[in-house]
């Protein structure tokens, strides 16, 4: 040991500085949060009796799902699935096609401020409403059926895809972009050579992921009148055909899981 430093008395304790410096404020926040939590629990009437009564009813309901009835005498399940699949595909394609220009405009390092703000506005607008609200609007505007569902899912896709595209562009490697710019490339060439290769793999993965989401959402928008498998599911419940409803649920699960598998595989492949 160095003789000079051994003479100085160094402290033997060290504590990580707290996140909130003032201890009064820190305790006030903790106590406030605890009091609110207790009050919130108190105001919710937890009725144990009601809960216990619900259990056998739930069991009966669940039992009526089995065995799932795949017979599909009226052909409605098959039709509903086909409708949902094309609804998911075309709304994904249309949504992405619209997302690309909006996403480019919403990247701060590409667009001037006014373009940036308006594109971010569009994205924020479409993200404010979940697909089911968009579907309610679309059904009011365009009437019942898959067209309303298509519109709702396309708008939902813009909010999702354009935002993630813009964020990916903002995180790109600036030097690669600079190098292409320095060759005298035009703006479109610059996008094609410097930006596109950097964001493409992620965008392909996200497209498949969005297709997956749109298929699932097509079941939800159907319930409010947007067509597809959701409408079939809703009808099955309304007619107390729980075994058919169970069959529909199984089919949805299988399709979603296979899409999940395909998207995972694709993402690995494009890296």
């Amino acid at each position, binding site marked *: 040991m160095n003789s000079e430093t051994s003479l100085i008395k160094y402290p033997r304790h060290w504590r990580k500085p707290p996140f909130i410096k003032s201890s009064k404020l820190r305790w006030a926040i903790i106590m406030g949060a605890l009091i609110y939590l207790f009050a919130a629990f108190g105001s919710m009437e937890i009725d144990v009796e009601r809960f216990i009564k619900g259990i056998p009813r739930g069991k009966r309901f669940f039992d009526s799902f089995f065995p799932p009835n795949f017979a599909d005498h009226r052909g409605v399940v098959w039709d509903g699935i086909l409708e949902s699949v094309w609804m998911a595909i075309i709304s994904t394609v249309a949504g992405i096609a619209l997302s690309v220009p909006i996403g480019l405009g919403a990247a701060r390092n590409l667009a001037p401020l006014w373009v940036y703000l308006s594109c971010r506005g569009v994205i924020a607008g479409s993200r404010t409403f979940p697909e089911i609200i968009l579907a309610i609007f679309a059904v009011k505007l365009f009437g019942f059926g898959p067209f309303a569902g298509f519109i709702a899912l396309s708008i939902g896709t813009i909010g999702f895809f354009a935002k993630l595209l813009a964020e990916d562009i903002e995180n790109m490697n600036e030097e*690669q972009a600079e*190098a*292409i710019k*320095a*060759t*005298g*490339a035009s703006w*479109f*060439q610059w996008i094609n050579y410097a930006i596109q290769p*950097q964001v493409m793999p992620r965008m392909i993965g996200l497209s498949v992921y969005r297709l997956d989401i749109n298929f699932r959402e097509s079941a939800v928008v159907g319930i409010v009148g947007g067509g597809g498998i959701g409408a079939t599911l809703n009808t099955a419940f309304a007619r107390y055909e729980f075994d058919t409803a169970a069959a529909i649920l199984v089919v949805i699960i299988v399709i979603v899981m296979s899409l999940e598998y395909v998207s995972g595989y694709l993402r690995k492949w494009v890296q």
Partner: protein
Amino acid sequence: MLRLEKLTKQYKTGDQALIDVDLEIPKSQVIALIGPSGAGKSTLIRCINRLVEPTSGKVYLNDLELTSLSSRKLRKNRRRMGMIFQEYALVERLTVMENVLSGRLGYVGFWRSYFRKFPQDDIKEAYRLLDRVGLMDMVDKRADELSGGQRQRVGICRALIQNPDLLLIDEPTASLDPKTSRQIMRLINELCEERELAAIINIHDVQLAQMFSQRVVGLELGSVVYDGPPDGLTPDVLTKIYGEEDWSATIEKVEDDDEEII
């Protein structure tokens, strides 16, 4: 060939990166630009091709004033200035050939470049350059499969296929090992000589600067504090550029242990 007049750059943050820099570079002269980090070396070369817009002052390339050009004319004139980067700045997911051909983007239209249908002369020239730097076997490899030295060679090809009059080179060796650094510097020197190119090379390594340049410019806090021959870098001069330090080992003459470029 290249003339800077009272070039000044002040960033929005208030940092004064360049202050009234005057510099004139004749045809086919290779100059090394040295100076501590933050002295404004990168800003200086980026102000020449206006990747960074200078605040005031003028840049002339062959008596054409670049600083007042419209963005369309600027793009056309960027073709005459090849740029080489510290981290190579290759587009990593494109092939070596696409990276080299991207140096021709200023000469071809959008759809041609989009479908990768470059003129046959461009493709032939790309092959010739890749052969010249010893990367003939790597043409279809993706740029991120290459080693550092190989990537920098692709970067050099991309700059040269522009058919430039001037090379702007930003820390070409900072990410390379000492041996590869020397090979790359020698390659740049040879190519500049073959094509009678002028070059500005930003470089940290004082020894490399002395070995591979005809003229050294020292930049400190945005001003030129030295402009002279490589062997004029005495301890006094280095102290003026970088600050107080023991410089005796740095300026010892090192023998250039010659190796063929692999």
